[in-house]
């Protein structure tokens, strides 16, 4: 009995040790991410301070009927000794593209691409090169260059949807491309946006002046004419020691006013009426032009018929009546006009003949 009890106790002890070791191992594994998180938290820079809101000139860009772009000025004060980065971003939207590929000797549309969450406009202006203002980690954290914003843009491909907008919006057949192909698609999209002028980076565009209150910054640039109406976020980052130390944001509004606003509202709210009006206006324009050109042609023809008249008609002073003009006095107005032209043409011919 005693031997059996000792054996049982030994087994229990062994099992107890195993459980202790297992528990310790689990605890150690669980501690790793906690410690890592703590270490990261300890390394994370303090949240950037708030800067005074930048001043926009103008705060609202009005797109009237004769809108021809605008010159925008952004100015404000940053903490002393800091570099400044100004980033302007349009609202996110979905876009659809065809992608061409080489099939034998020719380039054909081989894929259809659906780009999600792409900002309509991305403009980045710095007081110096971005790499001298911020480290890569900071650039990616605040998404301050085109490569960084690509991380939030999703590119999907092989959308076999119909080409009408309504079907595009459904996007039901989108698939995620493999990483190599996706990399290629991102690069193509970025190149297209840069080519259009909607994505731009201009280092050295922001001018800095040291003042008693801090560093005064100013930026003046031509607003892209093709940028769509909407709200644009303007973010200003003050950087020192390759880290963001302060930031502030404001909104620049691009709004349609007057006739363009009226047309855009009507097209959106009463599309069928707008479509019918567009057709009627086009038909009216067509017939009106036809009417104008035909009446012009009739007027032009009138002197041509007078050239056929006898050149020996006596010279008639303006207002003087001839026997012929007496005959036509009772005739309708167009005929009178024609006769007057005939007389003038006749007299001109006589004068020319005399000169000859």
């Amino acid at each position, binding site marked *: 009995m005693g031997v059996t009890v000792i054996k049982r106790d030994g087994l229990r002890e062994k099992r107890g040790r195993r459980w202790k070791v297992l528990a310790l191992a689990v605890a150690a594994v669980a501690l790793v991410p906690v410690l890592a998180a703590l270490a990261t938290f300890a390394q994370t820079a303090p949240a950037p301070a708030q800067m005074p809101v930048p001043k926009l000139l103008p705060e609202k860009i009005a797109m009237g009927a*004769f809108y021809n772009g605008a010159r925008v000025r952004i100015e404000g004060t940053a903490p002393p000794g800091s570099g400044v980065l100004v980033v302007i971003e349009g609202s996110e939207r979905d876009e659809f593209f065809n992608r061409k590929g080489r099939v034998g000797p020719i380039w054909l549309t081989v894929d259809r691409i659906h780009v999600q969450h792409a900002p309509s406009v991305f403009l980045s202006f710095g007081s110096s090169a971005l790499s001298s203002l911020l480290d890569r980690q900071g650039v990616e954290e605040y998404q301050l260059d085109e490569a960084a914003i690509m991380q939030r843009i999703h590119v999907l491909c092989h959308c076999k949807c119909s080409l009408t907008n309504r079907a595009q919006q459904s996007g039901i057949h989108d698939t995620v491309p493999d990483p190599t192909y996706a990399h290629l698609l991102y690069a193509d999209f970025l190149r297209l946006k840069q080519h259009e002028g909607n994505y731009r980076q201009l280092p050295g565009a922001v001018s800095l002046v040291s003042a008693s209150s801090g560093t005064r910054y100013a930026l003046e640039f031509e607003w892209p004419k093709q940028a769509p109406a909407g709200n644009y976020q303007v973010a200003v980052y003050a950087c020192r020691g390759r880290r963001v130390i302060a930031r502030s944001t404001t909104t620049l509004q691009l709004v349609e006013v007057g006739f363009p606003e009226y047309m855009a509202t009507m097209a959106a709210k009463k599309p069928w009426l707008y*479509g019918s009006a567009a057709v009627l206006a086009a038909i009216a324009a067509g017939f009106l032009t036809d009417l104008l050109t035909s009446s012009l042609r009739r007027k032009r023809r009138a002197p041509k018929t007078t050239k056929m008249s006898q050149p020996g008609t006596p010279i008639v002073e303006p207002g003087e009546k001839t026997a012929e003009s007496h005959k036509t006095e009772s005739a309708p107005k167009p005929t009178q006009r024609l006769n007057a032209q005939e007389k003038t043409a006749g007299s001109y011919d006589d004068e020319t003949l005399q000169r000859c």
Partner: protein
Amino acid sequence: MRILLPIAGISVHIWTVIGIGGVIGLLSGLLGIGGGFLMTPILMMIGVPPTVAAASGTNAIVATSSSGVAAHFRLHNVDFKMGVILLCGGLTGSGFGVQILRLLRQLGRADLVIDLTYIVMLGLVGGFIVRDSWRKMRHGLMASPIHDGLHRRSFLSHLPLQMDFPHSGVRHSVLLPFALCFLVGILTAIMGVAGGFVLVPMMVYLLRMPAHVAVGTSLFQALFTCAGATIMQAGSNQIVDLVLALLVAVGSTIGAQVGARLSRFLRGEQLMILLGALALAVMFKMVADRVQAPSVPISQIARVDFVQPVQHLALGFVFKLGR
């Protein structure tokens, strides 16, 4: 002077847009083509978004066609009877073509088929017209065996529903122009254009209509097709820019008038040779574009489903009549 296009959302030079319209209108009045296959790419070049360019171009073609129809009507160049039959055939064919296009898209090779159809059709039509017109100009009308080709075929003259078209000076079964336009409708649905450049040669060579009457009648048909497409595009997609369309229309209506007048100074063969040369030029440009590597391989989707809205409109009318 620049002006803001409210739907396209871009600022453009007024005179540039009017000038573009003028050139397209000139070709339209002269050759009886709607100009759709030229309008969209040219408007895209000045920065108009592709879908807006295609839909607004359609609206502008309404103006060009109405101006051209009015001018040709005065010159007695519009055969309304033939025009109505062609319109019915075209709409039915386009409805059928849209279904074929849908099937091709499901197979995933629609773009390849569309591109090849464009190149082959433009090459065939352009080559045939230039060859035939050149032969006629050099050796006189008798040189062309096609001139009385369909008349010789007895089975066509024995088709039911024979009808006189006194304006065109021809007698055909109603089924013949209907069937021809049905085929053109299928092609136009696949290619996404109104199809004047296919329709005019068909009317001249197969229906034996005089070239001037074919041009006027083609414009009459384009007027209705494009009006329907504009209303449907505005209603369904809100992509018709009226300001852009009217600016293009101002240029194109004047151009169409000049073109219609100019067409009187050219013989039928000369008109056809111009149309053939234009079709061949567009074909060579397309081939060149597809052989050269593009600077940016992706581009915004340009083609708008052009005929589908017209088909819906036609079906709507039929449905209402059926009630």
